[in-house]
C-alpha cells in the first residue's frame, strides 16, 4: 500500500503533509479576511436549535442543531435516510419542526411556508429539484416570484425578461439554454439541476441551501457549481451544502455537520478532519475500505483464472478489524452517484 506522502494529495485539508496548490493557498488566505470561516464568532445568519421532527412513528430528526454564518459553507453530511433533507426542509419552511426553534440573525423566527423562507432570503435547491416538467424554462425559473410589468389589474408576467434572466443565469453555470420556452421535461437531468441551482442562486439573498446539487452533474458542471458555492460564500451568504461526495464537500466546506439516524453525529471545522475521517463519519468508510480490499485482491489475482478470482473474492475478510483498515479510501472513486 502507498503511504499518504507519495500519492497525489487529493485535497489540501488532509492532515498529511503536502504541497498546497498556489490557487488553493490563495483562496484560503483570502477567505481569512472575509469575517466568515470556522473561527468566526459572527452571529449565524440561520440557526436551527435542538430541532426534532417526527413523521408518525418515524423519528426523522431528534435534538439536531445546525448553524451557518454569513460567508460560511456548512456541509451537511450523512448516509441515506439520516435526515439531511428533513433538516433543510425545516430551514426552508416546508416542515414546521415538532420542537426546537429557528433563528435568523439571532432572532427567533417561525417559517410558516416556503414563501416565508424565500421572503427572508433563504433559497433552496431541493433534492427532487421542485421543477415542473410541463412548464417552460423561464416559467419554471420564476414561478412563485414572477417579475411583472404594468400596474393595477393589468399587471402582466414579464415573459421576455423572465426568459432573458433565466438564460443568462443558466449560462453562468455553463448551460446554454437554446430556447427559454422549452419545456423543462425535455431538459437533461443535469440541465434540470442547473436550472434549480441557478434559480436558487438568483433568489437567495442571505442563505443558499443545496440538497445534493451535484448528483446529476458532469465533472465540469459540478466544478462550476462548487465554484458558485465559493462565490456565494464570498458574497457573504450562508451556504448549507448537502452532498454524499466527500471530494465535493472538502474543498468548499468551512464546517461539517454530520447526521446519523436523525441525530447529530459530530460537527467539525475545516482542518480538523481529513477525507478518510469524514468518510468514516459519514458511515461509508468501512464499506469503502472493504471494497478497496476486494478490488485490491482482484487486481493481484489477474494472473489467475476467473474461477479462482471468484473464490478469492468471496474469501475476502469483511470484518472491520481485518487488516483492510490500512487501505486508503481516497484512492477510490467518489461514493456519490
Amino acid at each position, binding site marked *: 500500500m502507498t503511504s499518504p506522502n507519495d500519492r497525489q494529495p487529493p485535497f489540501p485539508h488532509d492532515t498529511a503533509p503536502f504541497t498546497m496548490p498556489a490557487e488553493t493557498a490563495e483562496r484560503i488566505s483570502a477567505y481569512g479576511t472575509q469575517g466568515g470561516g470556522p473561527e468566526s464568532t459572527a452571529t449565524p445568519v440561520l440557526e436551527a436549535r435542538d430541532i426534532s421532527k417526527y413523521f408518525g412513528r418515524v423519528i426523522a430528526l431528534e435534538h439536531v442543531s445546525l448553524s451557518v454564518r454569513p460567508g460560511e459553507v456548512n456541509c451537511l453530511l450523512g448516509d441515506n435516510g439520516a435526515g439531511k433533507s428533513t433538516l433543510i426542509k425545516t430551514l*426552508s419552511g*416546508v416542515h414546521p419542526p415538532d420542537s426546537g426553534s429557528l433563528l435568523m440573525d439571532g432572532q427567533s423566527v417561525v417559517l410558516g*411556508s*416556503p*414563501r416565508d423562507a*424565500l*421572503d427572508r432570503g433563504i433559497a*433552496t435547491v*431541493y433534492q*427532487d*429539484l*421542485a*421543477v*415542473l*416538467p*410541463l*412548464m417552460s424554462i423561464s*416559467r419554471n425559473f*420564476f*414561478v*412563485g*416570484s*414572477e417579475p*411583472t410589468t404594468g400596474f393595477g389589474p393589468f*399587471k*402582466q*408576467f414579464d*415573459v421576455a425578461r423572465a426568459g432573458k434572466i433565466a438564460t443568462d443565469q443558466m*449560462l453562468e453555470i*455553463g448551460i*446554454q439554454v*437554446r*430556447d427559454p420556452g422549452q*419545456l423543462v*421535461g*425535455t431538459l437533461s437531468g443535469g440541465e434540470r439541476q442547473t436550472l434549480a441551482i441557478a*434559480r436558487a442562486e438568483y433568489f437567495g439573498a442571505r442563505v443558499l441551501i443545496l440538497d445534493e446539487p451535484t448528483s446529476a452533474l458532469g465533472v465540469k458542471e459540478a466544478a462550476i457549481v462548487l465554484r458558485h458555492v465559493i462565490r456565494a460564500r464570498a458574497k457573504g451568504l450562508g451556504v448549507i451544502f448537502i452532498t454524499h461526495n466527500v471530494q465535493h464537500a472538502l474543498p468548499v466546506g468551512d464546517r461539517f455537520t454530520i447526521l446519523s439516524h436523525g441525530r447529530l453525529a459530530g460537527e467539525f471545522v475545516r482542518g480538523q478532519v481529513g477525507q478518510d475521517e469524514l468518510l468514516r463519519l459519514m458511515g461509508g468508510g468501512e464499506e469503502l475500505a472493504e471494497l478497496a480490499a476486494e478490488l485490491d485482491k482482484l487486481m493481484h489475482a489477474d494472473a489467475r483464472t476467473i474461477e479462482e478470482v471468484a473464490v478469492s473474492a468471496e474469501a475476502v475478510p469483511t470484518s472491520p478489524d481485518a487488516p483492510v483498515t490500512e487501505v486508503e479510501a481516497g484512492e477510490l472513486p467518489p461514493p456519490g452517484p
Partner: protein
Amino acid sequence: MTAATTTAEGERLRRVSPLRLFFSRPESGAIAGAVIVFLIFGVLSALRGDIGKGFLSIQGAASYLEVTAQVGILGAAVSLLMIAGEFDLSVGSMIGAAGLLLGLLIVQWGVPPTIAIILTFAFALAVGAFNGWLRIKTGLPSFLVTLGMLLILRGAGIGFTRAITSQTIVSGITDKTAGDPIVQLFTAKVTIAGGDFKIILLWWVAAVVVATWVLTRTRFGNWIFSVGGSEQAARYVGVPVNRVRIILFMTTAGSACLLAVIQVLSFGSADVLRGTNKEFEAIITAVVGGTLLTGGYGSALGSAFGAFILGTTQLGINFVGINSDWYQVVLGTILLLAVLVNTYLLRRASGAR
C-alpha cells in the same frame, strides 16, 4: 463560456417548420378539429342542397354559436381549474340551483333584479369557495368533493323550491324584469342579416379572452400551471397553492352562475333540472381543447374551440337530418379522438418520442 462552445451549442437548435411549431401548442388539435367538424357539417349540408338555410345560414350560425357560448363559458373556467389539477362536478347543478335562487328572489320575494343577481353571484361564489375549502381541508380528490356538492345542490334546489312554491319550476320572471337596464346585460340580442345573435356570445368571448390572458400572461396563470403540474413543487417555490385552488373553484361556480343568470333572465323561468350533465360537457370542452386531464398543461383558448366542436356537432346533427339520438355517440367519438390526438401532440411537444 468560450466562444467555441457557444457556437457548438447554438448549432444544436435546428429550424423547425411553422406548422410543427403550431402543433406544439396545446390548442392546436382543437383548432384543427373545429375546422374539420365545421367542414364536415358544411359539406353534408351542401350535399343536401342546404345552401343559405339550416347549417349554412346566418340563423344557423347564430344558433350553433349560442350553444357553443353556453358550454364555452363553463369550459373557459373549467379548463383553468383542470389545468390546476382539479375537477368541479358541481357546475351543472349550480346552474340549476343558482337559477332557482334568482327566480325565487325575483318572483317569490320581490327583490329588485339587480340585487337578486348580486345575491345569486354571492351565493355561487360562496359555494365555490366552500368547495375549495373542503378540498383543501379534507385532502380528498375534488372529484369526490364536488360530486357531493353536485348532489347537495341538485337535491336542495328541488327541496327548497318545492317547499316554497310547491312546484319545481319558477316562472313569471320576465314580468318583473322587463325594461331593467341591468337585465339587458344578460338578455340583449341583435339581428344581423336575419340571424339573432345573443349577448351571451360577448360573455363567452370575454370569458375566453380573460381566461387566456390570465393563464398565459399573469403571475396567477403561472401559478395555475404549477399547482397542476406538481402541488409539492409549487409549494416549495412559494406559490400560494390553496389560494389558487379556492379562487379557481370560485371561478367555475361563478361561470355556472353567469350561465344560469343569462338563461333564467332570457327564458323567464328557472327549472330544477337545468344544467344537467353540463359538468361533463364542460370537462369534455376543456379536454378536447387540449387540457390535460391530470393537470399542469392546457389552454383556455383551446376550450373555445372545444366548445365550438360541441356546439356545432349538437346542432349540426339536427341540421343534416341525423336523428339527434346519435349526438352522444358522435360526442363520445370526438372525445376519444381528441384525447388521442392531444396526447400525441403533447408527447411530441414535450419531446418524449
